[in-house]
């Protein structure tokens, strides 16, 4: 029965997504694509922050490298199909992660965060200064966006916002599913136990730095996919948007607001931030101020974010039901098991 309900919910969600462009029009479709991009970006960072306990303030370097990878591939390779273009971004980001991983897997905590802050800025300045490759602050724009075509059968123009909506959402949903599946594998469980007690995992015979490196590369690669979709969506990649420091802070905030301990936390967070951004930018220019305030309030009063809040509500509701429903029902309170990493 439960499984039936779940399937029905998933199917309903899928139907809603298919109808979404028709129901809400192009403007809200584009907002949804942006939300989806940030959701994938934040979910990929959550592989590090939520599941492995590594805080990175430089995840934009993978997002940006994915975006630049796709943009450069589309600019320089004539007639490159759509899927290989997205793969180019993915591979570029993965390659960068493979190069940087040996440097960063030996540290954790503050040192990890700071090294990423610095590496992220290094990539930012590289993108600014290597003007002949990246176009500096103007960036790369106006590249031809190929249609998605199955040879001999069909071809969909990606310049049409509706088709692009379906393509982007399909790629992002697929990527998020792969990441979800990854957390359910035995390897994913090692990742979680490494967050909770790295020393014990080491004693059990698992190689902590190697495991970290694998997770790190996966997180980087999928951020690259988010960047690749972003590049095609905007048809423009510029240094500040791709590698800027706010681009690095953004997914961290999304995860914190959504809830750090849950897989779906970042997705909720991206939705909340999308709404917040959309609403505040209508009334005020001080979006950063509002975001800063939200961040401070969340960390002060709801440190487990939105999903943590939901979990505690659910626990409380169950406890009440147990207390009223039958005698001797155990009073269970939310214990805060999803401990933040120190």
């Amino acid at each position, binding site marked *: 029965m439960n499984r039936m309900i779940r399937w029905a919910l998933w199917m309903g969600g899928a139907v809603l997504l298919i109808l979404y462009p028709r129901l809400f029009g192009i403007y809200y479709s584009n907002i949804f694509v942006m939300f989806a991009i940030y959701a994938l970006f934040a979910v990929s960072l959550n592989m590090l922050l939520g599941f492995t306990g590594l805080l990175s303030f430089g995840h934009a370097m993978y997002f940006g490298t994915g975006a630049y990878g796709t943009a450069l591939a589309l600019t320089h390779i004539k007639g490159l199909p759509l899927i290989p273009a997205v793969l180019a971004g993915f591979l570029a980001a993965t390659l960068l992660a493979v190069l940087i991983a040996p440097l960063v897997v030996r540290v954790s905590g503050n040192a990890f965060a700071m090294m990423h802050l610095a590496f992220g800025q290094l990539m930012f300045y590289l993108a600014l200064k290597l003007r002949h490759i990246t176009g500096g602050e103007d960036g790369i724009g106006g590249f031809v966006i190929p249609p998605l075509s199955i040879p001999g059968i069909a071809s969909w123009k990606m310049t049409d916002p509706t088709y692009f909506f379906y393509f982007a959402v399909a790629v992002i949903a697929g990527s998020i599913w792969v990441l979800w599946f990854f957390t359910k594998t035995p390897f994913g469980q090692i990742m979680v136990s490494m967050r909770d007690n790295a020393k014990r995992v080491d004693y059990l015979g698992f190689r902590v730095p190697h495991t970290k490196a694998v997770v790190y590369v996966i997180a980087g690669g999928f951020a690259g996919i988010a960047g690749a979709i972003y590049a095609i969506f905007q048809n423009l990649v510029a240094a500040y948007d791709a590698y800027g420091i706010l681009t690095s802070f953004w997914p961290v905030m999304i995860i914190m607001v959504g809830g750090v301990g849950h897989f779906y936390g970042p997705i909720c967070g991206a939705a909340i931030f999308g709404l917040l951004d959309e609403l505040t930018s209508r009334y005020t220019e001080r979006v950063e101020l509002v975001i800063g305030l939200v961040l401070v309030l969340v960390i002060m009063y709801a440190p487990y974010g939105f999903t943590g809040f939901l979990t505690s509500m659910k626990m409380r509701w169950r406890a009440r039901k147990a207390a009223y429903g039958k005698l001797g029902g155990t009073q269970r309170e939310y214990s805060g098991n999803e401990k933040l990493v*120190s």
Partner: protein
Amino acid sequence: MTAWGSGTLSIDDEAYLTYGSLGGGIQVGHTFRFKEDKPVDATMAMYVAQGIHGLAYGMILFLVASGLTLIFGMMGILNLAHAAFFMLSAYFGYQMLAWTGSFWAALLVAPVITAAFGILLERFLLKKVHAFGHIGELILTVGVSLIILDGVKAVWGTENLTINVPPILKGLVKIGVMQYPIYRLFIIGMALALLLILSLVLYKTRLGMVVRAAVSDAEMVDALGINVPVVFMFVFGVGTWMAGVAGVVIAPILTVFPGLADQIGMDAFIVVVVGGFGSLGGALLVSIISGFISSYGVQFLSQYAVLLMFIFMAAALAIKPMGLFGERE
């Protein structure tokens, strides 16, 4: 953070500093005036001049980085709002100058107000999230930093505000055959004086002993009956105050604008990371090295100089992941 200011700002006829285009680092330039009757080795003079520029910048970096590293060493808090406080103090300095007309009043009062804000942050916000570990503290300070960065834009606008140096510090002083702006030498001298006072307090007084002990084991010091939270507050205040002093002092050279925090903040973080978290000596050494790297880098590599800092950091961390003088996580 839209104001990646650019432009050339002259502090006097002889020396100029540019806040590089698009965050391209602090580019240090200098025009020389030589006595006509005495031909000198211009290259040598250039090296010396760039050296002094580098030292001045390194000293400013040290003022910012020392607070950062002290706070980290003691409380394990990496205060990402530190650079924002640095910038906030520059704005306070501008406001004080506008009200009182005295640079010295600005230099005295603005850092103290900034330190008060820092203490409020420590007292009422950071303490509460301490239970959630480093990540909570990092996120909190990022939030505070965003509020400050956008707040100053709301109050003072985005344009560059200028602060004039007092007449006594204007002009040039002759060193050997070349002339050098007094104000830079004033920066170096003041930073050295602060460094001296700080090290005297830290290494020669009972208070300094308590602080050093708390850096290495806060719990143990607490058990000895010393009020560690008050010591923490004191250190946080002093750290923010030093960043505030640096902010007011750099303001006449770089002017005051919302992007002020970005460049120096990033360099100060690199200094703390490379020098080793919590190590004051490491911060001093790496600050001076970084100052030289930026000034000579601009000389030889012009616009790519800003990359040098990051390459330096990557190289240092590849050899010693915990920083040159760092011992613990």
